[in-house]
């Protein structure tokens, strides 16, 4: 008798598209010539071209993952791997072509920049088209730019760290990114400098059957702090697009890096991203990973705790609606004594969506004073939806305090009836229960992002009651 909760998915607000006005685009498909073309367009040093070619080779050799989300519909020959939207980057929104400017206005980036950001990079298809950082940060030596510009202006830093956290052959999609990467962010925070206001990058795909492969490298020098935020959206097309980013973070001794993602791709985007950080002595790395959109996401932000007393944290929030599969989680490697970690995962599935938590806690041999805490909560909104939990542990030391909790709950008819008998409509009651489920986690987000996340969940939950 008990009926499913009938809340329809809200309309995706960022599904609009503008015509293809790229100033340059490679043909469909991927081969060595395309990789060489991308490298030539960017006037790269020879070592980067050679590195790309090694990536291409590894991509061809590596098998598709035989686990995780269903990727069988990806056709690598049907994708455009590089599209240059404008001739050059701008430092003022007004200088951008009208349609690109309109896109960011509708997403609200210039407004967010004025209100609460210290710097913004905006990527449109393959290139960062807008970049700006507050001058006071620049004077302190903070570098925040497109990686192509870093390669030109800070070649020694890029050469020293690029590909050191995630090697070119780490997995098939990291290899693909290595071959065709374009855009992304490069950040360097000097010793002891604290960037108190977040930096943000925004990634927008406009083209159909497109692949976006940004590359981000963050180096937080000793005792520094930075909070980096990324957001992303794309138009709704019937054909699939692919987003495969690589994000590498180095938190040197005593540094703290917080990386927040609000992923809201349209439901024709495969989002297959490799994110990894290394934390040296007493460093702290926090991944706040919100996955709301996309068709399939496979993403497990990792922290390698390499120095004593380092701390790693992953907060993962996933929302899987109709036709979506969110295969997300986190990975912590304890490679030094007295290191600690926390993984908190909350997922919501509705309308047949599948949300899976996949996590790994690894502790190297002969370590002491290791602490780790993993909590996975899943909420199912109807009987058609699914959730899975795959917690892996490889513990090779004795002195380890390891806690793991996992819970699955459902919105019950009794909860809905209770709230409705207090005047709330069925959809508002569902939303209140969902927000309540997320509340302990959302509380830990910076205010603006908590507001943004709540708004997105509200959009996903919006709709008429059947």
């Amino acid at each position, binding site marked *: 008798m008990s009926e499913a909760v009938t809340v329809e998915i809200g309309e995706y607000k960022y599904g609009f598209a503008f015509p293809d006005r790229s100033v340059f685009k490679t043909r469909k498909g991927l081969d060595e010539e395309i990789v060489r073309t991308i490298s030539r367009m960017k006037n790269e040093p020879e070592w980067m071209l050679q590195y790309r070619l090694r990536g291409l080779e590894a991509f061809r050799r590596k098998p598709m993952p035989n686990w995780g989300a269903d990727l069988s519909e990806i056709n690598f020959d049907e994708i455009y791997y590089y599209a240059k939207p404008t001739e050059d980057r701008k430092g003022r929104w007004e200088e951008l072509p009208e349609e690109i400017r309109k896109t960011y206005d509708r997403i609200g980036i210039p407004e967010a920049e004025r209100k609460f950001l210290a710097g913004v990079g905006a990527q449109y298809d393959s290139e960062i088209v807008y970049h700006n950082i507050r001058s006071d940060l620049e004077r302190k030596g903070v570098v925040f730019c497109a990686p192509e510009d870093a390669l030109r202006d800070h070649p020694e830093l890029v050469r020293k760290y690029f590909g050191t956290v995630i090697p070119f052959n780490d997995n098939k999609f990291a290899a693909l990114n290595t071959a065709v990467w374009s855009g992304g962010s490069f950040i360097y925070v000097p010793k002891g400098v604290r960037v108190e206001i977040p930096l943000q990058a925004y990634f927008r795909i406009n083209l159909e059957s497109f692949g976006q492969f940004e590359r981000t490298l963050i180096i937080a020098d000793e005792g520094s702090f930075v909070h980096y935020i990324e957001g992303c959206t794309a138009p709704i097309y019937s054909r699939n697009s692919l987003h495969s980013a690589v994000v590498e973070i180095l938190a040197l001794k005593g540094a703290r890096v917080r990386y927040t993602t609000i992923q809201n791709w349209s439901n024709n985007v495969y989002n297959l991203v490799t994110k990894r950080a290394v934390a040296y002595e007493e460093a702290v790395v926090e991944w706040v990973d919100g996955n709301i959109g996309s068709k399939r996401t496979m993403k497990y932000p990792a922290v390698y705790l390499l120095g004593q007393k380092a701390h790693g944290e992953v907060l993962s929030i996933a929302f899987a609606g109709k036709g979506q599969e969110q295969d997300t989680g986190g990975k912590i490697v304890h490679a030094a004594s007295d290191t600690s970690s926390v993984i908190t995962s909350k997922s919501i599935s509705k309308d047949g969506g599948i949300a899976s938590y996949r996590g790994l806690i690894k502790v190297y041999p002969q370590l002491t004073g290791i602490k780790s805490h993993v909590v996975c909560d899943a909420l199912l909104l109807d009987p058609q939806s699914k959730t899975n939990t795959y917690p892996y542990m490889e513990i090779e030391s004795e002195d380890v305090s390891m806690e793991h909790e996992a819970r699955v709950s459902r919105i019950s008819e009794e909860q809905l009836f209770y709230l409705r008998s207090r005047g709330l409509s069925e959809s508002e009651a569902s939303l209140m229960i969902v927000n309540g489920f997320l*509340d302990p986690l959302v509380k830990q987000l910076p205010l603006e992002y908590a507001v943004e996340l709540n708004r997105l969940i509200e959009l996903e939950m919006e709709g008429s009651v059947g």
Partner: protein
Amino acid sequence: MLLQIENLHTRIEEKEILKGVNLGIERGEIHALMGPNGSGKSTLANVLLGHPSYTVASGRILFEGQDILEADPEDRARLGMFLAFQYPVEVPGVTVGKFLKRSVEILRDGEGPLNVNKFIEELRAAMDTMGMDRSFINRYLNEGFSGGEKKRMEILQMLLFQPKLAILDETDSGLDIDALRIVAQGVNRLRGDQFSALIITHYQRILDYIKPDKVHIMIYGRIVLSGGADLVGELESRGYDWIREEVRL
């Protein structure tokens, strides 16, 4: 007539539970509905608020003269009906303060946007009446509450919403005498010509503190006997068996 129930038959799944209930409550009246376990009292309470698991097979429910059988639970609440649940559910992550503010906002629609400071003042006063610590405002709704705290929370809501009709579904069960007195005090505070109540109970105990205008006995899904407050005393001394026998006859 505020509430008029006419020949109400209901089923849950295939089982018929209410088998022709007739009941009328005038404005300002307090009625008690008594009866043994499984007689259909809680079913009636849930059906009055429109619980989706119950199917009304026939009959009518009129509230202020309007047939509400097709109305959703939220619409019935907005008309001025309130149910104090026998087993209030936990809603993790939703604070008491947030929940109450939103409900009061909806249920007092027409009074304009809620003044938050005024609301908090009112909420604190109501909590004092109910003997509830103010720290409850920031707790998650019913989560980890004791049985007695859950019941007080229900009556606190009644005080804030000021319904035209409150249905108390065994609010007295599991309460110690002090809690019972406080709950009764909450009901008596609202008592007046704009407030009616249907108090569902097994025991006469709560009726020592809230004197009903009318008493009904429900057995096997029907109201088999109605009378004044003196019926309570009779039940007290003779139990339900004599009524059962009379019904069979």
